[in-house]
């Protein structure tokens, strides 16, 4: 079995999870703790990847980040390579797929923290940021970690968005999911099976971990 696609998938999923964590927890905190005009719109836009077909998402990303777009052009000018059809594109694709999970589950976890505790922190002199990082986030940690694990599993398995945005370039953007598809097309069933079993094992292990974290709520 060729391990390169799996290694690439793990690498991309790790970076995507980190990016989705930073962006997603920020958005989750904003949605959970503040009221601002357009709050519902932000919620809908961030959640949309759950329900939109990967091709539709891929299309939007190609338009937004392609070589002729402003962002794509600027990125290429600075870093010397394009976003689309590179590993960067694969990371973006995996991040977009994972983001709704971080925002939805992260927001629920943050909203589950007793608001009086956050208020207590504020009366003790903590600004909103300190109250968030020292009280709300630590108390929501289980739920947030579970959200990040789901996000990792989601990015590890992405197929459609990655194919649209990053293509299927062996050694460059060919992740395990894409490699399975290619192997099936080329009747390399053994190669496909090895990756199928590995991805399944990782997904099940992650889901088991998530259940462990979110089930068995501590009774105080």
């Amino acid at each position, binding site marked *: 079995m060729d391990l390169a696609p799996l290694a690439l998938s793990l690498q991309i999923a790790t970076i995507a999870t980190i990016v989705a964590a930073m962006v997603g927890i920020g958005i989750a905190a904003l949605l959970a703790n503040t009221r601002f005009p357009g709050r519902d719109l932000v919620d809908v836009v961030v959640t949309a990847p759950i329900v939109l077909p990967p091709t539709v998402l891929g299309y939007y990303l190609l338009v937004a980040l392609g070589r002729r777009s402003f962002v794509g052009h600027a990125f290429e000018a600075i870093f010397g390579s394009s976003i689309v059809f590179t590993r960067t594109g694969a990371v973006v694709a995996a991040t977009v797929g994972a983001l709704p999970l971080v925002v939805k589950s992260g927001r629920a976890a943050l909203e589950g923290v007793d608001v*009086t505790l956050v208020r207590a922190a504020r*009366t*003790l*002199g*903590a600004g909103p940021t300190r109250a968030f990082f020292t009280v709300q986030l630590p*108390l929501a940690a289980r739920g947030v970690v579970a959200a990040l694990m789901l996000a990792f599993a989601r990015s590890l398995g992405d197929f459609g968005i990655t194919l649209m945005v990053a293509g299927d370039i062996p050694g460059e953007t060919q992740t395990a999911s894409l490699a399975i598809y290619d192997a099936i097309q080329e009747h390399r069933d053994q190669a496909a099976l090895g990756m199928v079993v590995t991805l399944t094992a990782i997904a099940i292990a992650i889901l088991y971990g998530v259940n462990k974290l979110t089930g068995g709520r501590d009774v105080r």
Partner: protein
Amino acid sequence: MSAELRVSIRIANGFALDVDFDVPPGVTVLFGPSGAGKSTTLAAIAGLIRPTSGRIVLGDQVWFDAETRTDVPVHRRGVAFLFQSLALFPHMTAASNVAYGMDRALDRDVRRARAVALLERLRVPHLADRRPPTFSGGEAQRVALARALATSPRAILLDEPFSALDRELRVELVADLRAFVRELDVPVLFVTHHRQEARALAERVVILEGGRVQRVGAIDELGPPGGRDMSFDETPLDADRMLKP
């Protein structure tokens, strides 16, 4: 210190509140039946709720003024707030809870030493390295009191913090609180609907009913000790525990 807290606010969204009273240094009891607006008033003074109009001033510091659109955020008002639920941070030890509000320019060790000293003074030094979920009701109250007082507050707001305690513990804690308040010499607003607690602590009383101030005066205006006013919710002290969820 010795700055007076002047409160003149109206809240119109949902709960109608229209109050105007002063809190000089020392203890003033905010007394009234459930639903009179006591907790809402306290939350507005702390900056947890924004009033619709009016002013909140401590000495020469304007905390809130609807006309000039002044609204000092909660964390810059320097109020100690003792919540009814105590709101101890369950993921921190008692010492960390108490040290949370201290000046962060201080060395970590200094903050911890001060926290432990405060816990000692409230007779719970053995809790320093333990976490709130293991505390008894009285222990949790003492830690919460220590945490609120550790910030060198400019005003102290207490929202029925002792309501879940039995009579003996309540008397003890009221005595502890009195000793602290004398030293600090800041305005203290204490919400309660217990006459005895009010008498034990306060010199002044603000009687609130239906979102309005009914009377302001010396604590004696509450009537004779043990006197009853049927409009007030004065369940027997020991029954409280069972009535509270």
